[in-house]
């Protein structure tokens, strides 16, 4: 993974001192809240329902063991002993004091971490997929480009006060695990006819109040021009994005209003002026960054490991965990291991300080010291030898991190909702807990098969409910919490926004409603059909009928 040099380190250290001074001036009354708020947001500090929340950046979801241990320290020292992994691969601490924030940021800077630009109307954490660098289907490690984008976008003097937040995602594989099509800019790596690697550039995707799938403005961008092309897009957006209405200020609205063709024309015109200036990195710098992602020195591992095969055959629980929680690794004799942060009845994505420390130890022992964060709010140990899988599984099981439910119905994605968030209209975590308890039986969950449930506590859609196979949106009806159901969303390379199925369900009835949807699918499915396949085949009607039959 990328390691800071003296310049990167000095940058975060200076940023901490700058913010320390800004906090001092705020506490002394020299800065008003209006003047201070954008500065605090650009250091990842939100004011939430109960306290300040600090959103720490985990660039493209990659963490080292020492970094994870430091996050545990932050949780213990400044917070209430736990953290929450988010749908953008970051981590949130819910109880940070403003007066402590500079010290917390200084502790983070010690391990090359920061909370820079995780909020505010600026370029946010650029995300990749959690299997980057180790997935069998990858063309090239997208994190090289994510790191280039991270540096280019860090306190970019021109783009620090955009009309609205800006999110970029990169996929290096045809199977898009980074949901690039619902980002402001989505970049899909691929090869052209000449075998060169470049990006399909898509603009104007996003969820929130007006979910939209990004439009392609350039089919193939040679990879060496990535930064200058992004600069062109951002400049067009900075100048033309709407500033009159907070809810119409994202780039997706601009693309929607002027059309993809006009967007492409403006971007290409601007790019023509800057493509040969110094925005793009020289080859030496690209090579320097790429070296960090060249892949660890794997100890040679046999592809066939007798003990592993025996364990797989003898243990039904182990075998089941292997099926859902491990994925194919490009290096023979290895596997990618998913740590489920969704045990039945627990808040999705939350991890205690003690668990973080234990995971860091396991990462060092079994995963060459590296951990990944998935936007589905789970963790990944990306470099595990087959012969270590059984021991690792046992250790994870003891920690409550081995629920064999990755990608299944109880692997729920939920925003913090009204239990924590000042923007929410309804709670989401209790619903997630109740659904995961209803479907806690793993045999049943395995039988249901791949099915994602996403829950958002308000229209801002931080739970990404629009792209859940089943989506729940919490709404307020006369002071009561109600939940609107959507069906058929998906976040992958065939991204689609789910359709509202009918009137919202009360808090009391929504879990039953979800079960009704599942039972309807099970009754109708053909051999080998997942939920999405059946839904696409039969449409909404059978589900509507069952859901609203009694009323």
């Amino acid at each position, binding site marked *: 993974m990328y390691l800071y040099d003296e310049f990167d380190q000095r940058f975060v250290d200076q940023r901490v001192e700058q913010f320390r001074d800004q906090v001092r001036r705020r506490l002394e009354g020299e800065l008003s809240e209006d003047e201070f708020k954008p500065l605090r947001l650009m250091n990842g500090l939100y004011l939430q329902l109960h*306290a300040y929340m600090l959103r720490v950046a985990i660039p493209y979801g990659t963490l080292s063991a020492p970094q994870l241990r430091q996050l545990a320290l932050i949780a213990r020292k400044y917070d209430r002993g736990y953290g929450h992994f988010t749908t953008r691969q970051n981590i949130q601490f819910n109880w940070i004091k403003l007066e402590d924030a500079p010290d917390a940021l200084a502790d983070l800077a010690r391990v090359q971490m920061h909370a820079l630009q995780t909020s505010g109307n600026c370029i946010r954490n650029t995300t990749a997929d959690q299997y980057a660098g180790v997935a069998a289907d990858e063309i090239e490690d997208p994190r090289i480009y994510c790191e280039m984008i991270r540096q280019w976008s860090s306190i970019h003097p021109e783009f620090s006060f955009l009309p609205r937040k800006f999110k970029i995602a990169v996929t290096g594989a045809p199977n898009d695990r980074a949901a690039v099509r619902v980002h402001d800019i989505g970049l899909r790596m691929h090869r052209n006819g000449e075998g060169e690697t470049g990006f399909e550039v898509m603009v104007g995707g996003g969820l929130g109040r007006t979910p939209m799938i990004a439009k392609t403005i350039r089919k193939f961008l040679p990879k060496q021009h990535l930064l200058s092309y992004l600069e062109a897009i951002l400049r067009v957006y900075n100048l033309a994005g709407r500033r009159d209405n907070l809810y119409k200020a994202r780039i997706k609205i601009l693309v929607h209003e002027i059309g993809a063709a006009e967007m492409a024309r403006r971007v290409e015109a601007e790019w023509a002026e800057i493509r040969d200036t110094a925005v793009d990195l020289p080859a030496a710098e690209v090579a320097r960054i790429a070296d960090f992602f060249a892949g660890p020195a794997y100890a040679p591992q046999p592809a066939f490991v007798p003990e592993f095969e025996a364990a797989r055959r003898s243990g039904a629980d182990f075998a089941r965990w292997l099926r859902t929680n491990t994925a194919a690794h490009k290096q023979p004799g290895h596997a990618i291991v998913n740590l489920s942060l969704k045990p039945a009845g627990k808040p999705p994505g939350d991890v*205690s300080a003690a668990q973080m420390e*234990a995971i860091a130890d396991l990462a060092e022992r079994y995963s060459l010291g590296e951990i990944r964060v998935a936007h589905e709010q789970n963790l990944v140990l990306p470099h595990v030898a087959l012969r270590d899988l059984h021991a690792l599984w046992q250790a994870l099981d003891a920690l409550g991190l081995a629920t064999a439910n990755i990608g299944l119905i109880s692997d729920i994605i939920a925003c913090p909702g*009204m239990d924590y968030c000042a923007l929410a209209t309804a709670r989401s975590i209790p619903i997630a807990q109740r659904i995961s308890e209803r479907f806690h039986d793993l045999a049943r969950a395995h039988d249901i098969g791949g099915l994602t449930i996403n829950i958002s506590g308000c229209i801002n859609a931080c739970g990404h409910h629009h792209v859940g196979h089943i989506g729940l949106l919490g709404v307020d009806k006369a002071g009561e919490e109600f939940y609107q159901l959507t069906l058929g969303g998906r976040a992958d390379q065939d991204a689609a926004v789910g359709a509202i199925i009918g009137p919202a369900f009360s808090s009391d009835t929504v879990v039953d409603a979800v079960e009704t949807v599942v039972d309807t699918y099970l009754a109708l499915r053909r051999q080998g059909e997942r939920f999405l396949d059946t839904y696409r085949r039969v449409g909404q009607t059978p589900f509507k009928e069952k859901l609203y039959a009694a009323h």
Partner: protein
Amino acid sequence: MAKPAALQIITANRLRDGAVVYLGPDTHWSTRISQAVAAADEDQARALLAVAARAVAEAQVVAPYAIAVARDASGLRPASYRERIRAAGPSIAAFAAATAA
């Protein structure tokens, strides 16, 4: 059935640590909703908001606003779910306490 007079109290977040606070008597801000001073009408509410505005100018609190409450046997109870959660904390058990670790 006659509705009881709508009471309002002022709430904000304390600047230095973000804690939820309620405006009590003598311009004192407390983390306990039971200490809040209630306004019985709009004039009283406005007067309290003026006190709150001074606290903002003095860098004590951030973003004060009025909320509707009812007085019952247990004290002051906010009308909205959101403010009840704000007063009592997250409705889910604190995660760290809930895990075995």
